[in-house]
């Protein structure tokens, strides 16, 4: 086991930043801590790194209790959102820092440090930037220097706090693919914090979804996306439409009240909230669903991306919006335009108990 977190709790005054968190991260695994701001993900990362201490609970790093171990002795590489490069040092000196502060007995020779730094520079594709200062680099370059600096001390774990949060969209994409490739090469136990679900899905082996200081779900990207444990995870991982439906009792067939051919819930039936992803919506210009559909007016068409995003307003309940994502072909074939009235029907729905 690489990193083991057992029943960690942390209070900031009256605010519970972390509430009984337990988590196991295998060695060599790349895990994302995903959640909105204030969910406790950064606090958890800082506790693992040793920059913050937990009020209760235990941290084990490679099987050894680490609660009382100073940050500098935990063998972690840490990457900050805003790089935290030493601005008065060159790129070379930044990367070499962790090696040069070692006591004489364990400090590598000057030549060895030089070789290691240049190997790292090569790895982050910045060979020719060794004598630059941080302010002479772009954001993406700075973050790669920060990563090289963290890796220079040959840590057993790499912790990244919103590593791409301060970068623009294109650089962010590039860097996260690069991070994934790098991880596949060096297989360092890695944890990164992000609030961007797409980033977590794309990069991580496993995703830990957090909210309000608690873990909502732990699973592979596939698991958390397709089998969300609760409404929060479902909500956080993507856009959705919400309908009202009823069931005779839990587990029996689901009927939507929102359909044009209204089927009011019989007395005693259980009313449930029903969710569907925008890409799970069928859209037709004529009502081919036999009344089992919702009439909606096309408010906006966003053609950017693989699927065309339609923003719809229900005809019967103006103000209630729907989102649908359908193929470019379907839009063209049916000649769907702004202000048209279309009929939509969720293809796949999901209900959550206790929501």
């Amino acid at each position, binding site marked *: 086991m690489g990193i083991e977190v057992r029943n960690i709790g942390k209070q900031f005054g009256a605010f519970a930043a972390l509430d009984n968190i337990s988590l196991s991260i295998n060695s060599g695994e790349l895990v994302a801590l995903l959640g909105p701001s204030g969910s406790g993900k950064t606090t958890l990362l800082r506790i693992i*790194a*040793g*920059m913050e201490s937990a009020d209760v609970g235990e941290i084990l790093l490679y099987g050894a209790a680490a609660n009382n171990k*100073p*940050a*500098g*002795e935990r063998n*972690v*590489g*840490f990457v*900050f959102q*805003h790089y*935290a*490069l*030493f*601005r*008065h*040092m060159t790129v070379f000196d930044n990367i070499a*820092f*962790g090696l040069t*502060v*070692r006591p004489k007995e364990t400090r590598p020779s000057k030549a060895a440090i030089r070789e290691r730094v240049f190997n790292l520079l090569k790895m982050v594709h910045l060979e020719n930037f060794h004598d630059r*200062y941080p*302010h*002479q680099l772009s954001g993406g370059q700075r973050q790669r220097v920060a990563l090289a*600096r*963290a890796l*220079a*001390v040959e840590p057993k774990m790499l912790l990244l706090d919103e590593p791409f949060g301060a970068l623009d969209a294109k650089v962010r994409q590039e860097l996260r693919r690069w991070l994934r490739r790098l991880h596949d090469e060096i297989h360092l136990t890695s944890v990164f914090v992000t609030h961007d679900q797409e980033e977590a899905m794309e990069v991580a082996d496993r995703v830990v979804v957090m909210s309000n200081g608690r873990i909502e779900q732990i699973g592979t990207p596939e698991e958390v996306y397709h089998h969300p444990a609760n409404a929060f995870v479902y909500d956080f991982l993507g856009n959705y439409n919400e309908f009202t439906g009823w069931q005779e009792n839990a587990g029996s067939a689901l009927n939507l009240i929102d359909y044009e051919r209204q089927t009011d819930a019989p007395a005693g039936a259980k009313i449930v909230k029903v969710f569907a992803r925008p890409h799970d919506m069928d859209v037709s210009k004529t009502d081919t669903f036999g009344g089992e559909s919702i009439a909606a007016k096309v408010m906006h068409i966003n053609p950017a991306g693989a699927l065309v995003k339609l923003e719809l307003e229900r005809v019967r309940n103006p103000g209630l919006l729907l989102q649908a994502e359908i193929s470019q072909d379907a839009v063209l074939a049916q000649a769907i335009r702004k202000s048209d009235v279309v009929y939509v029907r969720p293809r796949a729905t999901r209900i959550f108990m206790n929501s």
Partner: protein
Amino acid sequence: MNASLKKQLTEPLWLRVVLITLTFLFLAALVGLPIVIVIIEAFSKGWGAYRDALTQPDVISALKLTLLVAAIAVPLNVVFGLAASWAIAKFEFRGKQLLITLIDLPFSVSPVISGLVYILLFGAHSMMGDWLIRHDIQIIFAVPGLVLATIFVTFPFVARELIPLMQEQGVEQEEAAVLLGANGWQTFRRVTLPNIKWGLLYGVLLCNARAMGEFGAVSVVSGHIKGETTTIPLYVEILYNEYNFVAAFAVASLLLLLGFVTLAAKKIVSRQERGQHGH
């Protein structure tokens, strides 16, 4: 930008000329003229008299005393300023706001009061006076008193320069250093200090200028014993009161020189500081 817009955005030429001229005249009358007079008076009896005035044993000893006081007060205030700004910028603790207010106190209290405080504390009729006399320790009317008074009035210079600088820089770089295995001293020496070095130097310059030029506070605790407890500014007054104008202005010219050196050094330091920040 078209001409009419430009016209709307700038003041008319005559107003600009008047304002600039006024400023220059003001400065010339209130700052330039006194400086020129100090120099003229200092050399009014020629270079020989000037040199003689500056080589009097009492002047030499006043000069030495001034340097000694500054040499003690400035380093102590550097240590204090670093400690205070480090604590204020990098940690959260109860009483922080009070500490910030207290640091500013010497700026808001009249220097005479600052000196008086030490007389009340350590003077012959004070609570500690008896004890000090019995142990033959002299603070008031002696060098320790001068140092204490000087430390008090120059207290805020370094801290005030560093606190905003360190607050702006935050703690991330220090955290990064610690995570990379640096110990406390290495973190301070190799990360914190280089980041604040120009700000620190700037604070030291101001602190030094004030330490050497302070009159009010040291005047109260000095006792004005010629050759023993008179610093340069005090000695200027003594000479002037003795109608020894050439010597008074000659010694004053030393302080003037200190002022110019400080100003030049300040200019260089702030240019360096800007350069270091890049962009």
